């Protein structure tokens, strides 16, 4: 197991694995996401109360879901950076932070668009919306802190600490709708119970969430590859790779 762990730390090894995985991630992601969104937007039945406006759930939930899980993945990578000083973990955090920022923004934006017709307001300072906004600022802070420090190693450590400090926000986002009175409704998907919507609604939702995960995997690989090439530009294998004309 440890051998695999150390192999994972090798940027060159990861570069090759990523190149092999990426076509599958991209194809699967587009396929699932298209299936989920087309099914959800065009064929799923409308809601008895909200009519067609609930359909924004097929975009809102995948982005919100990913925004949080990307942060959790970043936190795991931050622990690896701090404890094992693994370069690749830092590459991951640096590469996916902007993706997380965009996903968080999208979930806030689609949520606001949804809130206007259903609640009657774009924005309300309830615990769920506010904690999600804090997540957006955390992503922004991670990116800014990384850019602000020139030295790669000290940047990696500072960013890791910030990411770890911010991870307490994730359970707050997750349970805000249960701990406090909020305008936002509780989760439709629960780990222990059946989803509180019929299958012809939750299956497309699940498809688009999975598609979003795969697409995120593809984007993460792509951005990490770029970052690896930048950081390892003086090494022999990068020179060979670029000279071979595949770069």
């Amino acid at each position, binding site marked *: 197991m440890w051998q695999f762990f150390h192999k994972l730390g090798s940027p060159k090894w990861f570069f090759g694995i990523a190149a092999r995985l990426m076509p599958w991630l991209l194809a699967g992601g587009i396929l699932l996401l298209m299936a989920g969104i087309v099914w959800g937007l065009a064929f799923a039945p*409308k*809601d*008895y109360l909200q009519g067609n406006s609930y359909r924004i759930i097929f975009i809102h939930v995948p982005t919100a879901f990913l925004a949080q899980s990307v942060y959790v993945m970043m936190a795991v990578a931050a622990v690896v950076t701090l404890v094992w000083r693994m370069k690749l973990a830092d590459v991951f955090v640096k590469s996916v932070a902007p993706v997380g920022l965009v996903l968080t923004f999208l979930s806030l934006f689609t949520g606001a668009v949804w809130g206007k017709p259903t609640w009657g307001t774009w924005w309300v300072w309830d615990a769920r919306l506010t904690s999600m906004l804090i997540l957006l600022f955390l992503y922004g802070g991670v990116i800014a802190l990384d850019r602000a420090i020139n030295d790669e190693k000290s940047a990696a450590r500072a960013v890791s600490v910030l990411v770890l*400090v911010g991870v307490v926000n994730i359970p*707050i986002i997750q349970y805000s709708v249960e*701990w406090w009175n909020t*305008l936002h409704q509780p989760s439709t998907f629960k780990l222990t119970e059946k989803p509180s919507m*019929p299958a012809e609604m939750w299956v497309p939702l699940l498809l688009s969430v999975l598609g979003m995960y795969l697409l995120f995997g593809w984007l993460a690989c792509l951005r990490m590859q770029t970052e690896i090439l930048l950081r390892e530009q003086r090494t022999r294998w990068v020179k060979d790779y670029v000279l071979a004309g595949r770069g």
Partner: protein
Amino acid sequence: MHPIRKKRLTIVLFLLVGLGIAVGLTTYALRQNINLFYDPTQISAGEAPVDVRIRAGGMVEEGSVVRDPDSLMVEFKVTDFNASVPVQYTGILPDLFAEGQGVVAMGRLDGNGRFVADQVLAKHDENYMPPEVADALEKASKGQQKASGSAETVSY
């Protein structure tokens, strides 16, 4: 595991646990301020301040909505099936506003225990279903006893 790494891991774990406790205690202390609204039980128990802008949330009581025929004024009762608060509002209500639906109203409590709202937001729950299913459910629940059916869904 290497001793230095073990030490680092312990530090990281301590950092996380410490932070978790700190944030947990803070949010626990602030829990009343984090709640978006007071529920009718709190208001009737006198926990909500009078004549201060607050929010009140709950379900619109069945059969309590009275519209003024000459203006946009609406009166209704907000309930949590434990206590209820009369609300007065002048303005356009959101589409989802209906009897038996959740709302959050913003406004002030006057001295007589009435809530004068200047904004009413609709709150919906996590349940989604196609209209046909909702119709069928409604028919089924009307066939049974009328009173017991509504008390099951207190997810305003």
